[in-house]
């Protein structure tokens, strides 16, 4: 259904209705901007890159053949362009290692009497996700937020499907370790 709606606006744009392209910009701008931010690391560069991505997409629209979803095709352009921008600034997309230990500061300002509830777990999980390596954050966004299949993610970031599977497994393990260590702290606090 989503693809059908996108296809309608793509055809309108190709038939000369340039304004129809604004629908696609409006629909995908947040995702494109988010992906660019994850790669480039700052809002200013990400916004410029996101604008250039849509302009590139408009120029290349004739070449979109519908074999993949429009979103997949657009996110691939986003990924490739963001990496190019990074290279042009002589930067590398660092995949920093996760430091598995929780920072003591997170626990220390909490009252011993407080029960750790689901809401707080979610808060901690959010922080943990933000601390993931940039490529892992990208995969988390594409898989969990956008609901893309492993094959589509592999196509976007140009790695094998199996590698995406392995990375996802590692991400889950890291996040589970966090929650496990949190549970251990809960049991210590409750003694």
């Amino acid at each position: 259904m989503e693809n059908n709606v996108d296809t309608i606006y793509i055809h309108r744009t190709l038939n000369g209705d340039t304004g129809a392209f604004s629908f696609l910009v409006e629909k995908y701008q947040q995702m494109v901007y988010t992906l660019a931010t994850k790669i480039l690391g700052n809002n200013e560069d990400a916004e410029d890159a996101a604008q250039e991505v849509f302009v590139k997409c408009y120029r290349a629209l004739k070449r979109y053949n519908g074999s993949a979803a429009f979103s997949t095709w657009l996110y691939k352009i986003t990924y490739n362009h963001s990496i190019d921008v990074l290279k042009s600034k002589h930067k590398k997309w660092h995949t920093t290692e996760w430091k598995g230990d929780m920072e003591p500061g997170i626990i220390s300002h909490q009252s011993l009497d407080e029960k750790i509830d689901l809401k707080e777990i979610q808060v901690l999980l959010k922080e943990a996700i933000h601390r993931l390596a940039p490529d892992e954050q990208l995969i988390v966004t594409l898989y969990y937020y956008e609901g893309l299949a492993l094959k589509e993610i592999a196509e976007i970031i140009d790695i094998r499907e199996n590698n995406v599977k392995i990375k996802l497994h590692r991400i889950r393990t890291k996040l589970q370790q966090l929650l496990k260590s949190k549970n251990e702290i809960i049991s210590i606090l409750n003694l």
Partner: protein
Amino acid sequence: MNHQTDIDNLIKNVLKEDGLEKPSNGFTGKVMHIIMEMDVKPVSYKPLIPKYVLVGIFSGVVLFILFLFSSNLKQAGNSSTYFDKVLNSLQIFQFNLEIPAQFSYIITSALIMLMIQVILIGKIYKKNHR
């Protein structure tokens, strides 16, 4: 597997709550402004073969055909006074060549086909590079 589903659901909920990053206000407007500017600028289209070259080729072909026609008529023993007058007035076309009729027809047909193909190729090129 349930454990994995639990963590997956947790992650999904966290991300949905957190939402995506938002670009600045007027982002769509900025993008569309760039795109509209691209469309407004006239595309400087240069034809594959310039018109004056086409006119030159066509004129050359016509003159060549006239020359051949005149040459054939001379061979047949007829003198086409009109063509003789035209050719006589153009001194540079006074060749002493005698071209066989069949050869001249082949050359003429080949040139006509070439002209047609050039026009067709030009149309296809315009269509593909619009």
